[in-house]
């Protein structure tokens, strides 16, 4: 019996040893997005963007002496805080070294407070833009490669004024993201002398939006600004407004920008315009090319930000020489900002080499990453217009 026990213990020891060894050479990054729910058409390409960065690093074999980076996807349902938190718990139990996510602001807030902070896990969200997240108590663990909507409010207000809009009707999706964005747009637009005739919330996933459109039409306005989700109530509102002849042109902030929208609504949407976080220049071009080769649309909203979120994790780990959140968290801002050599998508291998040699890098990536304040993107915006049923870029702000 004793022998038997010894043998088992020995075997167990050997096994754990072997296990630990393989473990040391694997870095796991959780991808916690709303794969179902209101932005499910965006999260597919976003996750592929993040995974693209991971496979690039794994193939280079240069992260922490040849560590393999493996993604672990989990769903938040976008608007389901309970699901988001329990899936985040699961990812942490599965031993992730960093958490990319969540996608929707409400889920991000819930996961941060209930799971990430208590567990000391670092989160980088590629697409949560609620202004509330700027001031949230995060113990320095939360970063985002997307800018706050407070900035977007200014951009949108300027754009509207430039186009000669004097009054707007404003509707938002009734959650953290929609409320924050609509507040930002309302304040900025009023500051610039515009009139906001009505601010009305709409719920997502409802069967019928005649009531909302009736109220919005009664209030009137030059254009209708829809701070919603393109797969959800946002599209429903636009459809109902067009059918009733209430508005002809629509203002489309982020969340409403995607090729799915003109496809769903048709030629009546032509001429509507808006903006989405995005940068011009080399980074996005290279990224789009890489995405195309990998078989997904690189111009899809927040796909480059997702690539950048994953890249920041891995670069910070390399800079710290450790995949422990407590060790690398302080390096994230270092690798993202100047000084150092500029790093574009597809150059992660080079960046890892530089970091190994102890040199500085300035990660630019697909979305011109520049982290400000408590670790959020400074925010450059792509101005878009719907032309012939396509989302076309007409400028940058």
């Amino acid at each position, binding site marked *: 019996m004793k022998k038997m026990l010894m043998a088992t213990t020995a075997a167990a020891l050997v096994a754990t040893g072997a296990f630990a060894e393989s473990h040391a050479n694997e870095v796991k990054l959780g991808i916690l997005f709303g794969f179902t729910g209101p932005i499910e058409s965006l999260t597919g390409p976003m996750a592929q963007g993040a995974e693209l960065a991971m496979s690039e690093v794994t193939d280079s074999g240069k992260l922490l002496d040849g560590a393999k980076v493996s993604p672990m996807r989990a769903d938040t349902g976008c608007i389901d805080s309970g699901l988001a938190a329990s899936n985040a718990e699961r990812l942490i139990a599965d031993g992730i070294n960093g958490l990319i996510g969540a996608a929707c602001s409400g889920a991000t807030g819930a996961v941060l407070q209930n799971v990430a902070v208590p567990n000391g896990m670092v989160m980088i969200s590629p697409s949560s833009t609620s202004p509330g997240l700027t001031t949230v108590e995060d113990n320095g663990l939360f970063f985002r490669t997307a800018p706050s909507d407070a900035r977007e409010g200014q951009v949108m207000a300027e754009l509207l004024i430039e186009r000669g809009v004097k009054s707007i009707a404003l509707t938002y999706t009734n959650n953290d993201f929609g409320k924050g964005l609509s507040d930002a747009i309302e304040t900025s637009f009023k500051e610039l002398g515009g009139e906001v005739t009505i601010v009305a919330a709409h719920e997502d996933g409802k069967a*019928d939006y005649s009531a909302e459109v009736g109220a919005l039409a*009664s209030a009137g306005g030059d254009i209708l600004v829809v701070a919603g989700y393109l797969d959800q109530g946002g599209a429903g509102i636009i459809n109902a407004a067009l059918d009733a002849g209430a508005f002809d042109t629509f203002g489309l902030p982020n969340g409403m920008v995607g090729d*799915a929208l003109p496809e769903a609504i048709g030629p009546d949407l032509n001429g509507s315009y808006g903006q989405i976080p995005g940068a011009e220049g080399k980074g996005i071009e290279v990224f789009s090319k890489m995405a195309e080769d990998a078989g997904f649309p690189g111009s899809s909203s927040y796909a480059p930000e997702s690539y950048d979120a994953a890249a920041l994790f891995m670069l910070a780990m390399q800079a710290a020489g450790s995949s422990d959140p407590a060790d690398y968290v302080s390096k994230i801002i270092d690798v993202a900002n100047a000084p150092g050599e500029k790093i574009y998508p597809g150059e992660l291998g080079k960046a890892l080499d530089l970091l190994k040699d102890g040199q500085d890098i300035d990660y630019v990536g697909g979305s011109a990453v520049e982290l400000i304040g408590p670790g959020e993107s400074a925010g450059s915006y792509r101005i878009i217009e719907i032309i012939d049923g396509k989302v076309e870029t007409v400028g940058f702000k």
Partner: protein
Amino acid sequence: MEFLNAIVALANYVLIPGIAYGSQLALGALGVTLVYGILRFSNFAHGDTMAFGTMLVILVTWWMQSVGISLGPVPTALLALPFGILGCIALVLLTDRVVYRFYREQKAKPVILVIVSMGVMFIMNGIVRFIIGPDDQSFSDGPRFIISARDFKRLTGLEEGLGIRTTQLITVITAIIVVALLFWFLNKTRAGKSMRAYSDNEDLALLSGINPERVVMMTWIIVAGLATIAGTLYGLDKSFKPFTYFQLLLPIFASAVVGGIGSPLGAIAGGFVIAFSEVTITYAWKKVLGYLMPESLEPSGLVQLMSTDYKFAVSFVILLIVLLFKPTGLFKGQSTT
């Protein structure tokens, strides 16, 4: 002129959308109410049954469009409807055989069947997403408007436009035909009478030689037909998205309960009550009053009783009031205990 403008604005933003939405809810509620009346449980899978039937219709429609079959000005989907109904019937009969029959033989309590139907709901939900994906699908063809708001303004010279969609008209006409057929079937045919008898008193019906399995089968066939038609009409009018169909369940149940669950007439009335309460109570009357009132009295505010955020609260308050004062619903359905 001012008066006409007011009427047109009201029709455009309240009456027409309300009638079309009410018809869609009524058809959905009829299905729920039939299952409740005859099989005696609240079928949570109804929204996803609608989604499944509609999905089949869409797939057949796409095939028809690709080979060039069309109905002229009427959406091709109507031609594909029978195929969708057949497929949906096959699915619900299979579900009944595999799942519900077991519990029926156990004489399971209604609450257990409700939970079972939720399980079925999630499975159907998954099947639909697997086959057609979670995205919006558009399958409507033919002209979108009978008269668009812009044309109406040009034709009449009024300031307000009145848009009537082809699909809204089709929805209302189809709903009338389907309801008429259903009532004829339930009241005049032998099979319909046996269904009502079974619903009124199961034991007595069994004693008079009514075959329960046959009644159950007929119910499912009718429910599948109603679900597919309701789903297709809704999809044509708005758009098809599995998530929305799942969410449709709530107003559909509210309609069925308000009208008196188990009562087909109540389901129809309930559908319109819910639809109109959502649209009218939160309507901002500024525009209409602006036309009706003399200029000096024109309202400067929105004249909105409550913000549109509350539109669901409104339908649920109505639901609560009905349950408190008339638990059997407006049209005396079965008690909802």
